[in-house]
């Protein structure tokens, strides 16, 4: 049993919208990609399996199009348009990220399509909103992230270095999260009322409300956050939180020790590692461990003893980190109750024992290559309607005949 079984989604292939279709398809929706002859351009994005290019060999394509079927239709000719209309009659939902004028020019916009299917849910994702003239201008993930706010908050203490955009097309991904949230909301409403609707999703707006304090520091107090290395951009500078460990990798120390039991655990760990003799400030850890009542954090920097206790906590972490690997530092800190993270590369995260034990690595069969490959698994674990990659991404034109036979 799948959560979205029986829901048919038509997706006009486009690198910007493809993640939304994957999220729906992996939960059981029947997602049909409409591709032009020659296929969607992202079929040709690197990396490729064995580094050999080909329309069915792009790992980018593989990831974003799991569990979907594909039909090749030329939406610019009348035959293709007729077939598209037939498809819409059979569908619950249309998702697309086309130039805002394109579908209207083809006679395939919401106003046209509801004549064929009056309870259709049509989601249009654009750069700045369907009615905003700026949506016709060219964008990429980088320019969206720059205009939308994330880039301003991300980078280094040294402001002569440019601010930074995180990798992975997170601007498109963020827009796609809102595509799925809003269309599921509409599906639930349709389940009660029988009514479909048109949904306008702006990637620029989606990024603007995905900046945490960047937006609300301005909205509430008209203050501007400034970027800091490895930690939250802030209206006033905060203490460093990344530590270089003995193996050359980094860890994020999160919140340093701030409760007596945390000082006590830290001291015990230091002793287990036989590092107490190397750490003259150990006496302050002991004072922290024996502290009566709650720490008054507002006195750090004012009260000498309290300040010494808290700086000993941080210095103890620095000393330990300088002697062990980032992973061991993470594991050791978490084992004594400190919320610390090892800064993994994506592949290190994927091979981590916890990731593996939870079954996040899933095998996907590629019959065309007579092989199977390991993919990232479920973003959420449903007890009764599990997430599942039901098939590898479609080969170019793979289901054209099958789908045309279904609708004609």
């Amino acid at each position, binding site marked *: 049993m799948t959560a979205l079984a029986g829901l048919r989604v038509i997706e006009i292939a486009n690198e910007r919208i493809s993640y939304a279709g994957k999220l729906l398809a992996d939960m059981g929706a029947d997602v049909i990609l409409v591709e032009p002859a020659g296929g969607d351009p992202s079929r040709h994005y690197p990396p490729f399996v064995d580094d050999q290019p080909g329309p069915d060999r792009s790992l980018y394509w593989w990831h974003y199009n799991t569990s979907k079927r594909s039909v090749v239709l030329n939406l610019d000719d009348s035959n293709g348009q007729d077939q598209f209309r037939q498809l819409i009659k059979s569908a619950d939902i249309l998702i697309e990220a086309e130039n805002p004028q394109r579908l209207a020019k083809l006679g395939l916009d919401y106003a046209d399509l509801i004549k064929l299917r009056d309870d259709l849910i049509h989601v249009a994702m654009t750069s700045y909103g369907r009615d905003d003239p700026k949506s016709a201008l060219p964008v990429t993930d980088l320019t969206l992230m720059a205009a939308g706010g994330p880039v301003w908050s991300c980078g280094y203490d040294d402001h002569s270095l440019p601010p930074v955009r995180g990798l992975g097309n997170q601007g498109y991904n963020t827009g796609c999260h809102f595509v799925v949230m809003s269309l599921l909301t509409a599906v639930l409403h349709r389940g009660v009322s029988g009514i479909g609707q048109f949904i306008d999703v702006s990637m620029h707006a989606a990024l603007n409300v995905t900046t945490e304090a960047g*937006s609300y520091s301005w909205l509430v107090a008209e203050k501007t956050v400034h970027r800091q290395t490895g930690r939250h951009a802030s209206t006033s500078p905060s203490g460093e939180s990344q530590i270089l460990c003995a193996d050359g990798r980094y860890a994020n120390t999160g919140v340093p020790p701030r409760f007596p039991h945390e000082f006590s655990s830290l001291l015990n760990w230091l002793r287990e590692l036989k590092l107490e003799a190397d750490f003259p400030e150990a006496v302050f850890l002991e004072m922290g461990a024996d502290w009566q009542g709650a720490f008054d954090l507002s006195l750090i920097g004012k009260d000498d003893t309290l300040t010494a206790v808290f700086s000993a906590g941080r210095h103890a972490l620095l000393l330990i980190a300088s002697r062990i690997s980032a992973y061991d530092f993470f594991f050791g800190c978490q084992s004594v109750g400190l919320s610390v993270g090892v800064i993994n590369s994506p592949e290190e995260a994927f091979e981590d024992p916890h990731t593996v034990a939870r079954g996040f690595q899933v095998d996907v069969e590629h019959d065309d290559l007579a092989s199977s490959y390991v993919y990232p698994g479920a973003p959420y674990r449903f007890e009764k309607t599990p997430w599942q990659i039901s098939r590898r991404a479609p080969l170019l034109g793979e289901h054209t005949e099958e789908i045309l036979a279904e609708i004609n």
Partner: protein
Amino acid sequence: MAAALSTFRICDFTGQLAGAGATKWMASFGAEVIRIEDPVREGRWDILRGSAPYVGKLRGIDVGGAFNNHNTDKLGITLNLRKDKAKQILTEIIQQSDVVTENFAKGVLEKWGFGYEQLKAIKPDIIYVSNCGFGHVGPYSDFRTWGPIVQAVSGLTFTSALPGQEPAGWGYSYMDHTGGYYMVMAILMALVHKQRTGEGQWVDMATTESAQCLHGPALLDWTVNKRPTRQPTVANSNRNAWPGMAPHGIYPCQGADEWLAIACRDDADWQALGGLIKLPWCEAEIFASLSLRLEYQDQLDENISSWSASQEKFAAADLLTAAGIPAAAVQKPQERVDQDSSTQGFGLWPTVQHSKMGKVRVDGQPVHLSATDWQMKRGAPCLSEHTEQVLTDLLGYSAEAVQQLREEDVI
């Protein structure tokens, strides 16, 4: 027309952004979200409750600016779950709820007697969505996380960096926002299933897994080609390899800390850019094709930077986009909130009415639904603001009974 989600009620234990941000979506589309808080600790399991930013000189447990931002249109009640009568009231709320949501560490609800097995016993078709960094199952399920830790462990911090530097990370809790989005999807998909079949279920979310899904192509390059992202030289994340583009970066502009993003997708974009810059190096052989520009990208970026440094960022972005080249100014908060016709035109910053803070602007939703759009009207609840309302209107307690419960420190 009735709001899209007006038929649903959520018994909500979420806090911070990763959880509260999720139920904010539900409330903005008309679901009744009842926030359960602890009167003894004044709701401080959500550390944002009384935290900055503040409006003017207001301070206290009811006026945290981030808390207000994440909890619009929810009802807030207090229950002292150390007492049996409070557990009884919670049981009565769960009996009338469709969903129970939380983002505590593993085991907290269970300790109070409201783990999934008990929830099912109270309401057999309940949907229970738990959201934490490592999930409720697996070797790290007792480990503690918050946004930056999730980002560190899952690979997102590592892949945001410049060469020769340590990881920059995200500069904010991207995974608190995004973990919340996955929580919304989980709630809604479980509701779709329940609407069709009548069946509830538990969804166990580990946001470290949601986060790894955001790096799919890099993970496949590892599993299929055995190519790691950890290389001797740190990759410049302002560049783009999939697909390759050059120039592709963030360049300095006139003024202090002013920047411009430029992405040339192909030779046509590059030729158009050269036509605007009109300097001899634009014609150099080493920049004549994409593969050459990728090879000589350091030199290309130096040249672009020397040109951009004398440009005003918005004027330059307008010039480039008019010529068909993707470009955008790196906007500061004030610029994108107060001076951006696109966010303003979209109605992205609604004003809500808070009982103590008055009128405050908040993050809206970046979508519009033609028939049943979202609304944000009321600010976050003050501590216990709706306890009496929920007990009398929903559960049928008399005013006297509520007074009695108050005197017994139950609510």
